């Protein structure tokens, strides 16, 4: 039973614990069509954060009384494996997973043309294999790719990333330890095509100026992720996807 000492998160040279500068993303790996049996799927790795997403549908809503006459329902489950975190996660859905499933689903609803599939259902499943910060944003990034991979019509992709505040500095893409000991964590999902926010949460303390600065830094990171998403689609589908 000892009070945990907060480590120094940014050194005298402005380097973070893993060597990154404040505005650096972690190494990224993005792939689509990684799971054979789903209608669409994607894998996103950001440092040690590893996330799968799979999409099933559009299909008949089931049970039928859940169907909506003039559009599809979109279901979303954000889930973590029991061994994805430092402490073993309990089996079953935690309150945190239920909340994140909601905000991710609402972000996806913002871009999917649900009205094209009345009385249907589209299921999105996100599985966090390893959690080292930024799992909801990696999950949202992967889910939007999985929807594209499933051929579901969308206004555009969503790219997402978190920004944080650690040791007084606004940083891009905080890792788990930066999130834990930092002053703020702000996950942001953006539809780059329309320059609009589709997911936004903040947990921590920021001045209004820091908030503004964080929002700008996120946009920068999101542009890079968006490029990587498009490249992943291009690797799979060729040049035809540039307009997504």
């Amino acid at each position: 039973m000892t009070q945990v000492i907060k480590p120094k998160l940014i050194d005298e040279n402005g380097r973070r614990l893993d060597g990154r500068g404040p505005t650096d993303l972690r190494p990224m790996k993005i792939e689509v069509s990684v799971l054979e049996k789903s209608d669409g799927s994607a894998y996103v790795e950001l440092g040690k954060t590893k996330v799968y997403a799979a999409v099933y549908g559009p299909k008949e809503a089931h049970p039928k009384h859940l169907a909506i006459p003039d559009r599809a329902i979109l279901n979303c489950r954000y889930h973590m494996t029991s061994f994805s975190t430092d402490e073993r996660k309990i089996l079953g859905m935690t309150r945190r997973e239920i909340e994140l499933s909601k905000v991710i689903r609402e972000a996806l609803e913002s871009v999917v043309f649900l009205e094209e599939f009345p009385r249907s259902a589209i299921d999105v499943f996100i599985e966090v294999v390893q959690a080292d910060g930024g799992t909801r944003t990696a999950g949202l990034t992967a889910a939007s790719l999985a929807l594209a991979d499933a051929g579901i019509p969308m206004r555009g992709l969503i790219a997402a990333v978190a920004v944080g505040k650690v040791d007084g500095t606004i940083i891009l893409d905080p890792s788990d330890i930066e999130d834990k000991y930092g002053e703020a964590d702000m996950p942001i999902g953006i539809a780059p095509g329309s320059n609009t926010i589709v997911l936004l949460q903040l947990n921590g303390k920021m001045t209004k100026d820091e908030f503004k600065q964080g929002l700008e830094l996120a946009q920068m990171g999101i542009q890079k992720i968006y490029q990587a998403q498009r490249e992943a689609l291009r690797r799979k589908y060729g040049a035809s996807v540039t307009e997504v």
Partner: protein
Amino acid sequence: MSFLPLKERSFTVKIMSEKIYKLLQQGKRIDERTPYEFRKITMQTNVVEKANGSALVSVGSTRILTGIKVELGTPYSDRPNEGVFSVNAELLPLASKSFEPGPPDERGIELARVVDRCIREGKAIDLEKLCIIPGKLVYILYIDIYVLDYDGNYFDPSVISAMAALATCTIPKYSATGERVEGEYMRVPIRDVPLSSTIGIIKDKLLVDPCLVEENSLDTSIVVCMDSASNVVAIQKNSPGHIPLSLMESIINVAEEQISRIRTQFKEVIGIEKEGREHC
């Protein structure tokens, strides 16, 4: 599995959305309010004598009851010197035909977690003063929020009622050796009063404190929580839809102004004692 709520964006909703937008362009609302005007807020405390603290808060017809029960327990192992609090929220089926009986669904869980973050990140409670014996014995505050009547916007009155119940909560006093100091009670040590403002968005227009009809017709909405120094301490975009990046600065400014007004009323009505309360 997070299911889409059965809110159908039907034709009539689109007409209502258009109507609200046109009124907003003229600086008006469907219920005679201006865009940046809350409904009437009322705050009553100590409404449940069996709770250590309680508050019934209404914003228009939306009514929230929060009660706090205090128990003794052990601290988290990585926070041996701090008391513990936990927030739960139930959207009672009494309150709305859209609320179902049963364990909290994703909306109730979201509400509880946003209020929790607002209190936690807003440093509302001096948790170290809720420690009796470090590593062994601390106060545990169960902050339970019940939505009794729901006419839109349950976030802002929930934050107010949680803070009002906390600010008036009475807990039995224990000595540093863990013994009950018979007959003595203490207040929950309040450090700050973080509050929230929910902002609705239609196209390029904002409105605050949406009533139910507005809530169902918005493009999207966002909850902004700030402490008394106007730091942003929690944000939750809490419904589907887009927020143009260009609107974010206005959203924060509007929220700041609203929260400042609510704080003034909170001070007047709840009458927080100054001792140990730095910001409010």
